[in-house]
């Protein structure tokens, strides 16, 4: 502690020997950067010395060492005489090093570096040849440790801006995004798509509104100072504009849509485009912020955009939003010609826009699962029996006329048909067992016109009388519907069955009112 006569209060390197044993030796104090100890010993090593890696070589095995001490310790292993040099003095003199390169800043002793390893690395980096190259991104390094450090992070985490620039650091990515021109163009495009009406946009160039948080602040500096002089002309402009096009600005939808379209686009842009777009002139919007008393003059749109602006201006601009929000608007690539496995930068994707124009329909896989569930609920057990009975008891004329309907009226086809229908009865019915409420409800629907002798048939077919509810619950499916279940969605069909029953009962009682599709299902 007191060993060094240092006038500088900055330096106080404590030799470990002087420290009291009860406490760990104090760490070496570092100088403030750029201000070396004036009392320190300046050492100027030659380039050769700086670049030399292993100057001390063992004569037995030719292994190189950077320090003599290490070589001596190594020589012990060979049973060679070794001598460790002791410290010459107990006084520890701080050493600083200068760069041998005369043109370098650090050649000057006042700008010397305090660390030997540091000066070595500096010399290599600045004045050396870059021998280490990263494979992935072709960055070159002169110092191996730099290269190693880079390899750890290269390609691991990447942020990609729309303009194509890659970043490995989140902060630089966000900063870039705020100013990126490409982003500005994109959001401007989104604006023009989203909003149909832009009255007399006082700002001729929509781009500055879009991407640049800084720029937005600048166009209306006057309104920022809440002076009535500035506000009222802007408001008068605004109010004069509104009667022209009340629809465009007044209803919230344009305001909200342009807000939503831009919030899905870019975070910073959202703040700014909403100002630019929703109320035409950025001046008027800012005016509306700072003149709440006069906001009543403006239409509802200004109010809604005002509140939106306020809420969005409350959010600190870029950094609050997640970079992942960018992914929604990231242009996605479809390979058209010269197909590649990974998308190239200049390929556009239209996939985002495709889904919306089509009528949202249930996917085919979902339909199949639903059909399987419904099939499970059908009373195919009794149904099968009923069908078998039906065909056997139906008079032959039925089949005659049926076939006459389809083909020619000869007995050939009748025969074929009867056999076919008889033989296929089981399989057909099994398949029909899967066709659920649609079929059965149709059967249940109009009992009256059947006429007298049909009712027993109906009963047979369904296995239950008209008006009876009991049969509906019987039999989970046999046959094909079970097969379908095993292939299809499967789960939970029992619960669906209960739902089925109630809809059956409902259908029975509400016959005249039965609607077409939905009630059945």
């Amino acid at each position, binding site marked *: 502690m007191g060993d060094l006569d240092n006038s500088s209060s900055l330096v106080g390197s404590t030799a470990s020997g002087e420290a009291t044993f009860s406490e760990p030796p104090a760490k070496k104090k570092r100088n403030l950067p750029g201000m070396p100890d004036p009392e320190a010993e300046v050492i100027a090593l030659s380039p050769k010395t700086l670049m030399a890696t292993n100057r001390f070589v063992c004569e037995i095995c030719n292994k190189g060492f950077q320090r003599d001490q290490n070589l001596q310790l190594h020589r012990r292993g060979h049973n060679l005489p070794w001598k460790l040099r002791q410290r010459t003095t107990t006084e520890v003199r701080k050493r600083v090093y200068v760069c041998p390169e005369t043109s370098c800043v650090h050649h000057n002793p006042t700008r010397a570096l305090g660390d030997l390893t540091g000066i070595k690395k500096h010399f290599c980096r600045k004045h050396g040849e870059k021998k280490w190259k990263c494979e992935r991104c072709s960055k070159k390094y002169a110092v191996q440790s730099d290269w190693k450090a880079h390899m750890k992070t290269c390609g691991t985490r990447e942020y990609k801006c729309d303009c194509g620039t890659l970043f490995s650091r989140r902060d630089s990515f966000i900063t870039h995004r705020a100013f990126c021109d490409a982003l500005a163009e994109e959001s401007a495009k989104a604006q023009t798509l989203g909003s149909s009406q832009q009255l007399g946009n006082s700002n001729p160039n929509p781009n500055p509104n879009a991407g640049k948080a800084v720029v937005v602040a600048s166009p209306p500096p006057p309104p920022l100072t809440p002076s009535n002089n500035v506000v009222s002309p802007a408001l008068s402009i605004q109010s004069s504009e509104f009667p022209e096009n009340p629809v465009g600005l007044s209803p919230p939808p344009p305001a909200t849509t342009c807000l939503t379209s831009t919030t899905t686009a870019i975070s910073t842009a959202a703040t700014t485009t909403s100002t630019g777009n929703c109320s035409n002139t950025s001046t008027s919007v800012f005016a509306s912020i700072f003149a709440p008393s006069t906001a009543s003059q403006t239409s509802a749109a200004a109010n809604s955009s005002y509140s939106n602006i306020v809420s969005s201006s409350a959010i600190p601009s870029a950094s609050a939003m997640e970079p992942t929000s960018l992914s929604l608007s990231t242009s996605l690539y479809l390979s058209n010609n010269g*197909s590649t496995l990974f998308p190239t930068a200049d390929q556009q994707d239209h996939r985002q826009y495709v889904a919306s124009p089509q009528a949202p329909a249930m996917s085919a896989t979902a339909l199949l699962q639903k059909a399987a569930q419904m099939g499970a609920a059908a009373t195919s057990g009794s149904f099968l029996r009923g069908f078998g009975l039906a065909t056997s008891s139906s008079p032959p004329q*039925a089949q005659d006329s049926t076939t006459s309907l389809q083909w020619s009226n000869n007995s050939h086809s009748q025969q074929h048909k009867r056999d076919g229908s008889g033989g296929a009865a089981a399989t057909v019915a099994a398949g029909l067992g899967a066709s659920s409420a649609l079929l059965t409800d149709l059967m249940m629907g109009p009992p009256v016109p059947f006429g007298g002798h049909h009712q027993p048939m109906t009963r047979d077919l369904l296995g239950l009388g008209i008006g009876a509810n009991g049969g509906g619950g019987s039999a989970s499916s046999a046959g094909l519907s079970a097969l379908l279940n095993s292939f299809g969605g499967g789960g939970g069909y029992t619960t669906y069955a209960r739902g089925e029953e109630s809809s059956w009962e409902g259908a029975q009682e509400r016959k005249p009112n*039965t609607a077409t*599709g939905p009630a059945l299902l």
Partner: protein
Amino acid sequence: MSVLFVDQKMAQEDGSPVTSSAMYFPGLGSPYPWLSPGIGSPYPWLRELKSEERGLCLIQLLQGCAHHVASGSIEQANVWLEQISQLASAGGDTMQRIAAYFTEALADRMLKGLPGLYKALNSTKLSSIAEEIHIKRLFFDLCPFLKLSYVITNQAIVEAMEGEKMVHIIDLHSFEPAQWINLIQTLNARPEGPPHLRITGIHEHKEVLEQMAARLTEEAEKHDIPFQFNAIVSKLENLDVESLRVKTGEALAVCSVLQLHSLLATDDDMTRRKSPLATNNLQKVMHINKLTLGEWLEKDPISAYSLSPDSSLSPLSLGASPKMGSFLTALWGLSPKLMVITEQESNHNGHTLMDRIIEALHYYAALFDCLESTVSRASMERQKVEKMLFGEEIKNIISCEGTDRKERHEKLEKWILRLELSGFGRVQLSYHGRMQAKKMLRDYGYDGYEIKEDNGCLVICWHDRPLFSVSAWRFRRYE
């Protein structure tokens, strides 16, 4: 369903279908129109169906129709087909399109019962190679499956060939240059430098191979990689494996994308014989690890051709296809360091038609959903892929039998058994391959697809439905 009604209705009427008011749908004044297809009048009731009900209706109608076709009752099937035709449409929503192609396949099958008629209708078909290639390219562009398969395959190849100086790749269906261009670029970026690369491409059309050769040599020259492309113009089933000229000292990788299943097409009659030596065969299978499939076949040829019902996974059903067995054995004989196989993950090789139809219905429903989610309904490209790729596959599955039926997709578990029987050992597909695939999905913006890992193999799924499986294999030596 409608047959039933017709019977009933006719039973009560005087035989005239037109004026029947017996069965009417409550809520509508008009007769139940779809029971009288001969009328040809508008079907207002049907048009009022909303998309979901229409879809469900179509599913039920398809099943009913399939039953009739399976049992051979042509007239009844015809009635059902008529009903379906009112609802199905190749330009409509997903279910409508599926129904359109399935009914076309069913009708094709029915028509084969009248061979003269069938041949007359099918004799003037024009087929153009350019069109085929175009369709395949559209499939590559519109759906991510091929791209995913290529990415995973290439990653597996790069990993297996680490440190190899001479690499030889055999592509069993060489048609898309993008796959190998990507591999060339990846190999070029290897820390140890690119290897000497040889690619043997197999295709039945010379023009395709010429184009591949040109593009690949151009790409290799750009990166200054020693490269050689061998073209083999042949159908896969006629391929003479000896002609592949694998040199000693080079590391061999085989790539098969949706090709192997066509080798399962055999003469079905031969395979239907059941072997009485069932249990004996099982024991033999236990010893299979010590023999190659070829040797096993030599020992007991009859059992090899026997087939138990297809739904079981018994190894007995695997030895059925002599073509497959000999092909795999021949490949094994080349001692490949890596073989990557991409196949459809569904069982379309069932014995019974109904089994196949139901499986195909679920599988192609998912595929059509994929297209629906990424391409607009008006797109002609989408319709082309649906008709000329999926539609043709569906037709092949449903209406062809025997050696004509090439689309004999099988599930991964069966492929695993087959390949293990033939002497291949499994190679786990790495985490990196999966990550690459996921990254690709993100880059392209494909939504809804998933890559699942199943015991070292990767399965490409649409939501939860597995669609394609990618597995990697290597030559395994027996002691």
